[in-house]
């Protein structure tokens, strides 16, 4: 292979180099290093983002195992933005809480990003699976990062007699569901690949009518991969993990793996069927069923939540249901609208999590009461929170409005009239619980709680500000983003591996 062949893989390769650099720097930096590693990681991610804009990384690698298209570049940028925001938002938290494990934190985050950079362009099942796991395994570890909280302190204390560590529980729930799903995915893929005799995604479904083993195998894969996106009934880890893991990491977990997971879905359930002759497999109906179940259960279950992170977890389940509606259309229009939705979701949802993180009570509670009087205590955070919530609820001039409108339009055009109507009604329930959060911040008095203004570091402030700029900027001028997603959507169904 020549050098040109590897150009589409430039971003993941650079990300690997960045990971190694962070690990090496971790060894050489002195003990009192402050947040320098975090800043380094942020700079590296920023550099990668710049590279993604100035170096063309489209093309085919090898025999078509990886195809760089506008689609894959779009998702790469999305993951890079999410990771950059996640690093900025976590800077102070990591420095304060895990001073001796900073290097590993960023290295793990970066290696997850490597998987995310590969996944959307992977056109080979092997690469897809490895990238999917590469994305996923560091997340298990990061979910358990706050492990020393609740550890026994004294030899006389029984192990576990202190406050039970939420980190262990959060990570184990994510891990158990994840490991089960991996086994199911592997078994399903084994059946599909065995029948097809190839690992190329475009040849995965073979010719002619689908074999029974292919159908069953693909559905097992669908079930196995749904956990990452948090679709009902594979969603149950979501609220618990969100509640127990470090909040800046949850901001990342709630968007980037989901967006990239959707890209993997598209590879398997849109590109493969398209190559098979556009035949609608049995999964279209099931995608719609999963979408409906996620919208209904996610929206309903969020209503009685008092922990904001759990609330956002269920809301995320519902939001992914909306995306799936657009994916199920299988058209380039639907795909581009899904991509738009995901981009909007990245900036919006991360923004909410960062604000929640900034306002969390000292003892780590993130309930609605911890937000009381926020608009008085910290007007900037209050304003930002309101904007993010309105964006999630789909109110104009926040990017979430366009996201929801587009998804509804795409689904409506594909003829899912009743699902759109259902989604619209459920969106009203969504508005209700988002506004409960806003009410806690705007309409509750802080005199009773007497909580001081939250202290917020430079990195976190920058992260919130960037999210705010993204939400409002793209809300006012969605064409910026929309042109990109339109390219991405058309590119993916046109490009075929040779």
């Amino acid at each position, binding site marked *: 292979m020549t050098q040109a062949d590897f150009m589409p893989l430039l971003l993941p390769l650079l990300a690997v180099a960045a990971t190694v650099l962070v690990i090496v720097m971790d060894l050489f930096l002195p003990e009192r290093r402050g947040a320098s590693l975090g800043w380094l990681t942020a700079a590296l991610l920023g550099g990668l983002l710049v590279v993604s804009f100035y170096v063309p990384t489209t093309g085919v690698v090898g025999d078509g195992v990886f195809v760089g298209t506008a689609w894959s570049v779009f998702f790469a940028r999305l993951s890079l933005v999410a990771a950059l925001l996640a690093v900025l938002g976590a800077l102070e938290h990591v420095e304060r809480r895990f001073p001796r494990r900073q290097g590993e934190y960023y290295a793990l985050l970066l290696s997850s990003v490597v998987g995310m950079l590969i996944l959307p362009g992977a056109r080979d099942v092997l690469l897809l699976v490895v990238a999917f796991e590469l994305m996923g395994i560091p997340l298990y570890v990061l979910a358990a990062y706050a492990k020393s909280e609740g550890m026994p302190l004294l030899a006389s204390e029984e192990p576990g007699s202190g406050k039970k560590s939420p980190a262990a529980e959060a990570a184990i729930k994510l891990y158990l569901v994840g490991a089960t799903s991996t086994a199911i995915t592997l078994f399903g893929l084994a059946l599909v690949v065995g029948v097809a005799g190839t690992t190329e995604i475009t040849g995965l479904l073979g010719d002619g009518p689908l074999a029974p083993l292919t159908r069953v195998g693909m559905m097992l894969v669908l079930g196995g991969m749904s956990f990452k996106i948090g679709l009902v009934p594979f969603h149950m880890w979501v609220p618990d993990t969100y*509640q127990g893991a470090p909040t800046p990491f949850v901001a990342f977990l709630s968007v980037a793996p989901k967006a990239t997971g959707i890209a993997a879905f598209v590879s398997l359930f849109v590109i493969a069927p398209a190559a098979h002759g556009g035949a609608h497999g049995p999964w279209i109906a099931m995608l719609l069923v999963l979408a409906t179940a996620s919208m209904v259960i996610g929206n309903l279950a969020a209503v009685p939540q008092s922990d904001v992170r759990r609330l956002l977890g269920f809301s995320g389940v519902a939001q992914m249901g909306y995306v799936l509606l657009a994916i199920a259309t299988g058209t380039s229009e639907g795909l581009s609208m899904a991509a738009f939705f995901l981009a909007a979701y990245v900036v919006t949802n991360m923004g909410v999590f960062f604000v929640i993180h900034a306002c969390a009570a000292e003892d780590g509670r993130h309930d609605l009461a911890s937000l009381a009087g926020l608009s008085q205590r910290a007007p900037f955070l209050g304003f930002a929170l309101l904007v993010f919530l309105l964006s999630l609820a789909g109110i104009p001039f926040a990017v979430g409005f366009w996201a929801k409108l587009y998804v509804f339009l795409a689904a409506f055009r594909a003829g899912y009239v009743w699902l759109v109507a259902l989604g619209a009604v459920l969106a009203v329930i969504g508005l209700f619980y988002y506004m409960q959060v806003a009410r806690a911040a705007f309409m509750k008095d802080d005199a009773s709680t007497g909580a001081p203004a939250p202290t917020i570091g430079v990195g976190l402030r920058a992260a919130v500000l960037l999210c705010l700029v993204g939400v409002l900027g793209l809300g006012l001028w969605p064409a910026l983003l929309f042109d990109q997603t339109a390219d991405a959507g058309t590119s993916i169904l046109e490009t075929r591996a040779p």
Partner: protein
Amino acid sequence: MTLTTCLLLASALFSVGVYGLLTRQQLVAVLVSVELMANAANIVLVAFSHFTASPLGQVFTLFALAITVAEVAVGLALALLLYRTHASSRLDAAKEMNG
């Protein structure tokens, strides 16, 4: 020995793994069951590789083995953590967060 019998055997192993997954109450025991399921997937791959005379299945198996090992390593570390914080390796120890 035909492909059909091989696949049936793998399915049986997979189902036994699922049974263990659903009935076992300890994290390590659950991990063991997941291993059985992954092993069943590998048998499917090797069987297909044998009967279709293609190396792909075996290559996939090698990847699957590595992925499973990586997952087990993290899983066992988590089991250790669970024991340290909850004084138990039973899963019902960790149900503080619910609703």
